[in-house]
């Protein structure tokens, strides 16, 4: 059976990315410059040159083409500004979004469990994470690496985590469903896992929300320290089955994770 790729899905994703690009402020809608001719006049500097005049044609709001080409261009405006502060007034970096270098994260997913962690963002396209948490039965940790080619939106993550072997509970049994005849032997379980996930990261001010999903490889152990009694119809123990050595389990499966990151330490 040939799988169908729906181009409309890709288009929708592209449009969604564009929307969030705009929302992020990186694609600010172009606006007309306030002045077509800016005159810088040094203040309280007797004897200095009276002014420096820079001529610049006004740009059309939509296409940033000179107004001489575009219709209905605004009339030229002359503004007098302090030349010593002019750089700060017009520097393009002032419109750029603040970059935060650190974040505190909380995420929940499978097979990750629920974790709290620290995110390190050395630049806008890379995020490193170190997290610790629980799968409801044991404590564990996880290291991660996330690439954000656009600085937000589509992301690619690689993570490695581990939970030590411990006694299973009802929640663990519900997530890791096994055949009924195997169930008595799954008394303790522990696992390491590798995630490779695609996702979408959305930045809202100092908060980062993301949803990642993909493929996970889980390598685990199953232990049964207590022998399993097999009983007859009368309830009497007929014989015992004992896992002398731990069983080794490998799982290839889908995985999903949702997270909230609070960003701080920004410049």
């Amino acid at each position: 059976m040939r799988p169908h790729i729906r181009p409309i899905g890709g288009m929708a994703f592209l449009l969604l990315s564009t929307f969030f690009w705009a929302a992020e402020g990186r694609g600010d809608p172009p606006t007309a410059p306030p002045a077509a001719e800016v005159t810088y006049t040094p203040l309280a500097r007797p004897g200095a040159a009276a002014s420096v005049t820079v001529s610049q044609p006004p740009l059309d709001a939509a296409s940033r083409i000179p107004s001489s080409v575009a219709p209905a261009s605004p009339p030229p405006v002359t503004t007098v500004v302090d030349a010593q502060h002019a750089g700060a007034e017009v520097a393009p970096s002032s419109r750029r979004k603040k970059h935060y270098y650190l974040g505190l994260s909380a995420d929940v997913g499978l097979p990750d469990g629920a974790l709290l962690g620290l995110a390190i963002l050395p630049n806008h396209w890379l995020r490193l994470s170190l997290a610790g948490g629980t799968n409801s039965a044991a404590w564990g940790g996880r290291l991660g690496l996330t690439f954000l080619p656009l600085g937000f939106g589509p992301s690619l993550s690689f993570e490695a985590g581990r939970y030590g072997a411990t006694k299973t509970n009802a929640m663990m049994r519900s997530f890791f469903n096994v055949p009924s005849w195997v169930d008595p032997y799954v008394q303790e379980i522990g696992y390491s896992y590798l995630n490779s996930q695609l996702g979408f990261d959305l930045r809202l001010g100092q908060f980062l929300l993301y949803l990642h999903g993909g493929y996970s490889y889980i390598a685990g152990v199953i232990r049964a320290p207590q022998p399993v009694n097999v009983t007859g119809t009368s309830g009497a123990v007929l014989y015992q089955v004992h896992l002398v050595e731990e069983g080794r389990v490998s799982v290839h499966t889908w995985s999903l994770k949702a997270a909230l990151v609070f960003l701080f330490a920004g410049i």
Partner: protein
Amino acid sequence: MRAHPLLFAIFCSCAPSVEADFDAVEITYPDLAAPAYLGPTNSAVIPQVSFSFELDSKSLGASSIPANQNRIQSAAIYRLALVAKAGVSDLSFLRTVQIVASLPPSRQQPLAPTPQILIANYTRADESPVGGIFHMPIPMPVNILPLLRPNQSDQRKIVVTFTVGGTLPRTGWKADVVMGMSASLKD
């Protein structure tokens, strides 16, 4: 589009799957009763007695449903031992031991043949004392997978029959049977 086969291959390779390997599973059947030997002792033939016990094969994953049967990739016995419990303290009297595992006759078709697997057929040559534990040499793991794939009409049991020969006691005796198994599962 050329990407289709590649995406399909990636999708298939990522389809959820589970594999499990259990290298050392020990089944202990306690206090298996062996009957007293009441036959002649001066015969040229080695005196023999037979006794057996049953395992519930469902506890080992046996199923008549093909999809479930395929979950068990392998099951083998690699170790077997008798541990003297009552009536005897030394198992040096054992000279020959034959162990066969089989499915009991079907209730619907009692005369139909059922799978039988010879687990061990051992003749002890040396005269050294055995002591309370008799370890049965099994040179190669014995595949018992056919016993875990019964038909709809088969019973969910495995009968393990011992036939032992030697200078057998005139009274009944009991021993624990310890079987070492390995198994691998896939889903």
